[in-house]
């Protein structure tokens, strides 16, 4: 495939026009792509034989790489005699054997069932730490991306949307695409409310669609942020786990945000509880609570009170 624009550099070397066999990238394929006619040893030795290394050097390097993925005793097996997880480790050992600058993992865990995937995530992370090689992992699983990586690049609509640490990407998404892509989110469109009084360090806004029983817009207090300067409208992100729910209205501080909601649906996922509700005058709000928050599940139709801190409202581009 030809890139339309841009160049690819690894360690200062331009790889853009190079054929795949000159790139020195350790590639691990989604289905592992082990050579079915070669033993585990010969699979790992493949790239070394191509490089015309001596037999003794090849044997040493293969042993080293198989030890790194803890498969020393499997050298004589054929790929079909291995489990999915073992095949993947062989694929990693094979990629590492050529001492690449970068290890590229293409959705390495998408073929595994949920439980094994969790185990392999831990395994993969500790393996990568142990070997200390720059690794690029392609995944569609946001949780996997957050828990495995030092930095996440989010690609959308053919462009890099954001590059940042898991914390930055989750707590300070660059735009609406990233916010919606990583985790669940409440999006609140607002208009600046110059007339409403805002406590120091916050700004007041009127919600566009979230309305009270009287029909007047919900007033929001958001933590001050330079990106809000001189803007008439804004879009706020509110993570569901930041929304707290209570049975009775709470007389909080003046800068606290709060709204009455009618519970629409409740879904219980064991460790968490997802409650979706609507404001009396319209506008949806989703809250995520820990399991111990409620002695029994709130019934749909009942009225509850949601509240959150000004700092929980994150402005998006």
């Amino acid at each position, binding site marked *: 495939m030809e890139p339309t624009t841009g160049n690819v550099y690894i360690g200062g070397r331009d790889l853009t026009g190079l*054929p*795949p*066999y*000159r*790139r*020195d*990238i*350790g*590639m691990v*394929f*989604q*289905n592992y*792509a*082990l*050579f*079915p*006619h070669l033993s585990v040893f010969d699979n790992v030795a*493949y*790239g070394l034989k*191509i*490089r015309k290394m001596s037999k003794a050097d090849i044997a040493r390097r293969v042993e080293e790489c198989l030890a790194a993925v803890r498969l020393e005793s499997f050298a004589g097996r*054929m790929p*079909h*005699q291995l489990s999915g997880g073992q095949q993947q480790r062989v694929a990693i050992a*094979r*990629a590492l054997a*050529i001492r690449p600058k970068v290890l590229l993992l293409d959705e390495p865990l998408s073929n595994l069932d949920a439980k094994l995937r969790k185990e392999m995530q831990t395994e993969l992370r500790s393996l990568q730490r142990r070997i200390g090689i720059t690794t690029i992992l392609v995944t569609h699983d946001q949780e996997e991306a957050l828990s495995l990586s030092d930095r996440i690049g989010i690609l959308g609509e053919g462009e890099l949307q954001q590059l940042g640490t898991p914390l930055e990407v989750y707590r300070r998404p660059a735009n609406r695409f990233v916010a919606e892509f990583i985790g669940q989110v409440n999006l609140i469109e607002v208009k600046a409310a110059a007339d409403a009084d805002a406590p120091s360090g916050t700004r007041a806004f009127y919600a566009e669609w979230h309305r009270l029983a009287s029909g007047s817009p919900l007033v929001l207090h958001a933590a001050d942020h330079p990106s809000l300067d001189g803007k008439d409208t804004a879009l706020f992100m509110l993570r569901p786990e930041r929304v707290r729910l209570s049975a009775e209205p709470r007389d909080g501080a003046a800068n606290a945000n709060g709204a009455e909601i009618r519970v629409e649906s409740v879904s219980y996922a064991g460790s968490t509880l997802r409650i979706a509700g609507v404001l009396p005058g319209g506008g949806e709000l989703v809250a995520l609570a820990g399991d111990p928050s409620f002695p029994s599940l709130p019934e749909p139709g009942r009225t509850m009170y949601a509240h959150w801190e000004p700092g929980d409202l994150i402005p998006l581009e």
Partner: protein
Amino acid sequence: MPDSQPIKKYRYHLFSWIMLTPGLIFLGLFLLVPFVLLLVISFRDVDGFMNMLPTYSFAQYVEVFTSKFYVRMIGTTLWVALVTTAICILLAYPAAYLLVRAPGKGVRTMLYVFLVSPLLTSVVIRTFAWIVLLAQNGLVNEVLLKLHLITEPLSLLWNMKAVIIAYVQVMLPFAVLPIATSLGEIDPRLRQASMSLGAGRLRTFFRVTLPLTIPGMMSGAIIVFSLAAGSYITPLLVGGRLQPLLPLAIYQQVLQVANLPLGAAMSMTLLVLVGVLVAVMGWLLRLWEGRMNG
């Protein structure tokens, strides 16, 4: 109702056996019975006028395996079949490669039609075409004469080379199809993996693609070999009836000399030899596949 399960199964089996009966009767009558007859006749003795005697012996087999003429003929027959098989596999591989890599479904379908269309005409017609091409006053000689590349027509027909050329042409599709199938089954990511490990196109072909198509080449070889060792129309038409090939000799013994027991003994010999060779090839194929897939 756990009891109904075996009954259902039994009924299902009964039904399939009933459906199979006509086919089995046909095969029994026209394959098994003649085969047994052939076996029995091959042990019969003959008198000087080739009449079958009521006595049984190994005389015909002794004749086949002690006569220098027949032993050499067996060797030639297997050798010609082997050469034909080798040429077919060699020529079929690029064709199969082209077929599998054809851009778009339409082109591929068209290539398949080209490949299979010769099979729709009879072997006799396809072989006659070679006579038209290779005869003393045939197309090839005419063209070469007109171009003044030769002064006298070459004798291209009535020799073993002509037989092998015609064999290859007739049997090529049987080699292309299994190779194309096994080429098509190779995961393209295996080639990508090979390249990512530093192997260029050529080395990727010899280290990954070629080994993975061994099953296809073996299946093709088994089909071509058994066809080439057993056919007599093609050698009769382009090689002439004097070529030292076992199928031709059988044809002559049965229809011209009318020595049925000797013809039968030669048939059994050919059958067993080809059977053993095909079994060995099949065993190697199973061994290789077992190594890959368990």
